[in-house]
């Protein structure tokens, strides 16, 4: 760009105006739902953990004018507020944030609603099954206790009553299993629900026949108990999934995502990003992040594209150039034309990479699935062989089918169905407390098998925010700050941070891509890039600024990118635990090498494009590595989805969060804990599966030889389920201890 272009776009920053910052919660009003006179807002509050927090938040917000309801859900972090009158949404958020809690708009999606319904349905089914199991057991105990003394008629009546209780309970509570079994059977495959459904149906049918014929044994209690135990596992699984998803969604739904649209009359209006259509003119304020791809309508602007490209140095754009979603505007407010909708802007091309990764990941087979694949044919053939064996031995059809059914019941995978979910619930709950949100329970299994950790630099290891190096002279900092206080450029902010509060020079001009200038006591002071100031000291380090006071020799100001506190300890812990670490960054060689050196990481790759990153991960996979990818930017999204497992910081953009398995908010120092707990969880699950296998080893001979009476089945089932659950609960103690 020519020099005259630059000058044509100089912007005046008069005093008094530049310090008037927008409230960070300004955009929340776009998320308020109005019904009649009352307004409703759902926020996500992070950091609230106890009764004290709960009371403090609800009381403070409840005391605001016009608030009729303020209720915080401590399990999900959702905070529902209903109020009447002129109270702005931003002051509610400010009240909460003033108490020291993180707050953002909660984005309720259809998927959330669906999951909530599913969880409720499972809970109701579980309650009905519990009622049936308890009441039938009551009757069964009297049958068992009265064995030998009870008359045949009494027994028949008790069986009949059991059947009457069991029928509606099985029909209602068994639906989740029947539905799932039917849907896979239609496609000619089998899952764990097939033997479960078969066992329940057969047990019920055989018991009905036995009751009518006045037989010895009825298995109504076993059928009801089976459903009850299995539903516990299903319910726990659903709960983990919902909590993890809603937390991750809300982290993504940052309040800053409301966008300013300029309508045809030139009025600026805050709107929900969901309603932006291509062609809309949007106003991108200083410091605001673009949520859709757009074309710059103003002459010039400077962007921080670190989330998109991984490069931390600002980018200068001229009219008509494309602003990618995720970029942050560093210069003054600019107008731009939306090129896409928020839903499809972020990347047709990255989307393809994500899909590829998604497929790869769904090909991963969970430990539980592997166990089931071995288990289903085994159980079915055992039951079938039992039936054939007894028929050949001349036992008669009725006795043979009864024994076969009891085999099916006693081997039914209660322990198997509980083994994984209980461990997942306990581990996910512990991680949740430490600020790590898991997307799914099976992610733990993938974390557990990781052997190499690939880390992005900007935003993951380093703050991505430049800081003035310590060696700079105080007088120079103070002088530079005179100009810097008028600007929101990251380098200016670094100077302001170092200098502290102080005066600002009158009428500072900001020239995007170049620097700042102002007239101070009759001389022209300039603060900007070496190229612009006209000094070339041989080094073209983009992170350097020069301060020129009048005709004096320009003075260089050096900036560094600091590491996130705790990073070096975390890396040391990971190395000690036997993980190989590696940096994969889109940033320039020098800066990456510096960080790698500081952290003692020997392997690093710099200047990697998103495609390079994906290719690198692909190559590692071919070498047989199980890679954990840690990254935050759009440029990492492809790599995140291709990795064996992936984690993302809570500051990342949503596309990266949705591409990864877990989101952490407590800094990278939570990574060692995550990996350790994952390994522990996998061990507990393997123990549980081993136990379930041993249980079957003992139970099957008993059942096959015809000794599995309803009493034995009830005892064996309860014992195995409780043992597996207790073993999984040990995980809580582990996480507490270390």
């Amino acid at each position, binding site marked *: 760009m020519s020099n005259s272009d630059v000058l044509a776009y100089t912007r005046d920053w008069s005093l008094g105006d530049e310090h008037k910052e927008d409230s960070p919660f300004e955009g929340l009003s776009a998320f308020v739902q109005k019904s009649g006179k009352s307004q409703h807002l759902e926020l996500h509050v992070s950091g609230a953990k106890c009764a004290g927090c709960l009371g403090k938040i609800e009381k403070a917000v409840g005391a605001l004018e016009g608030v009729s309801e303020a209720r915080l859900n401590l*399990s999900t972090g959702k905070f529902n507020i209903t109020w009447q009158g002129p109270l702005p949404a931003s002051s509610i958020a400010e009240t909460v944030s003033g108490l020291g809690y993180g707050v953002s708009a909660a984005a309720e999606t259809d998927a959330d609603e669906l999951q909530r319904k599913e969880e409720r349905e499972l809970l109701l089914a579980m309650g009905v099954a519990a009622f049936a199991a308890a009441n039938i057991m009551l009757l069964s105990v009297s049958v068992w206790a009265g064995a030998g003394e009870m008359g045949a008629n*009494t027994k028949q009546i008790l069986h009949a009553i059991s059947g009457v209780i069991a029928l509606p309970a099985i029909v209602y509570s068994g639906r989740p299993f029947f539905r799932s079994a039917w849907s896979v059977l239609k496609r000619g495959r089998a899952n764990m629900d097939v033997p479960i459904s078969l066992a329940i149906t057969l047990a019920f049918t055989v018991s009905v026949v036995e009751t009518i014929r006045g037989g010895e044994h009825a298995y109504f209690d076993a059928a009801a108990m089976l459903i009850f135990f299995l539903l516990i596992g299903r319910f726990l699984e659903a709960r983990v999934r919902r909590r993890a998803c809603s937390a991750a969604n809300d982290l993504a739904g940052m309040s800053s995502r409301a966008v300013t649209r300029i309508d045809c009359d030139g009025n600026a209006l805050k709107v929900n990003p969901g309603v932006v259509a291509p062609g809309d003119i949007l106003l991108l304020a200083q410091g605001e992040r673009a949520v859709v791809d757009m074309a710059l309508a103003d002459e010039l602007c400077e962007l921080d594209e670190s989330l998109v490209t991984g490069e931390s140095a600002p980018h200068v754009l001229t009219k008509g150039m494309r602003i990618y979603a995720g970029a942050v505007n560093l210069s003054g407010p600019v107008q731009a034309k939306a090129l896409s909708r928020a839903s499809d802007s972020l990347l047709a091309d990255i989307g393809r990479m994500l899909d590829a990764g998604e497929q790869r990941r769904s090909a991963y087979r969970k430990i539980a699935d592997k166990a089931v694949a071995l288990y289903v044919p085994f159980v079915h053939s055992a039951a079938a062989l039992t039936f054939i064996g007894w028929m050949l031995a001349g036992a008669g059809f009725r006795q043979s089918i009864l024994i076969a059914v009891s085999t099916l019941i006693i081997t039914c995978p209660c322990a198997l169905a509980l083994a994984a979910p209980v461990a997942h619930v306990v581990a996910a709950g512990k991680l949740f407390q430490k600020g790590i949100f898991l997307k799914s329970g099976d992610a733990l299994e993938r974390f557990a098998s990781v052997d190499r950790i690939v880390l992005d630099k900007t935003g993951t290891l380093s703050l991505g925010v430049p800081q003035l190096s310590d060696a700079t002279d105080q007088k120079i900092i103070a002088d530079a700050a005179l100009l810097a206080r008028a600007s929101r450029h990251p380098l200016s902010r670094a100077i302001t941070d170092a200098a502290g509060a102080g005066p600002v020079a009158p009428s500072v001009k900001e020239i995007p891509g170049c620097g700042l200038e102002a007239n101070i006591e009759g001389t022209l002071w300039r603060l900007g890039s070496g190229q612009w100031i006209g000094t070339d000291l041989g080094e073209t380090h983009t992170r350097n600024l020069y301060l020129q006071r009048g005709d004096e020799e320009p003075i260089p100001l050096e900036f560094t990118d600091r590491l996130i506190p705790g990073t070096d300890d975390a890396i040391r812990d990971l190395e000690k635990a036997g993980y190989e670490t590696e940096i994969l960054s889109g940033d320039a060689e020098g800066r990456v090498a510096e960080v790698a050196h500081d952290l003692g990481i020997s392997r690093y790759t710099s200047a990697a494009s998103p495609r390079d990153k994906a290719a690198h991960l692909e190559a590692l996979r071919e070498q047989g590595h199980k890679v954990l990818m840690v990254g935050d930017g759009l440029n990492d999204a492809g790599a995140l989805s291709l990795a064996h497992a992936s984690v993302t910081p809570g500051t990342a953009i949503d596309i990266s969060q949705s591409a990864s398995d877990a989101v952490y908010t407590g800094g990278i120092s939570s990574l060692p804990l995550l990996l350790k707990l994952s390994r522990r969880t996998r061990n507990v699950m393997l123990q549980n599966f081993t136990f379930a296998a041993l249980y079957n080893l003992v139970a099957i001979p008993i059942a096959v030889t015809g000794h599995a009476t309803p009493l034995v089945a009830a005892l064996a089932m309860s014992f195995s389920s409780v043992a597996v659950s207790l073993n999984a609960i040990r995980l809580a103690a582990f996480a507490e201890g270390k």
Partner: protein
Amino acid sequence: MSGILFLIPIALFMGLLGLGAFIWSVRSGQFDDPAGSANRILIDEDEPL
């Protein structure tokens, strides 16, 4: 034997009552926030004297 005839229906009726209460509590959202409910009882709602 005659005792069973009315004891079993009574037992079942009471069980159904419990089940009904459970279904009501789930429907009215009392299971949506177990952590919150556990902590809420600790909040002293009385105004200080």
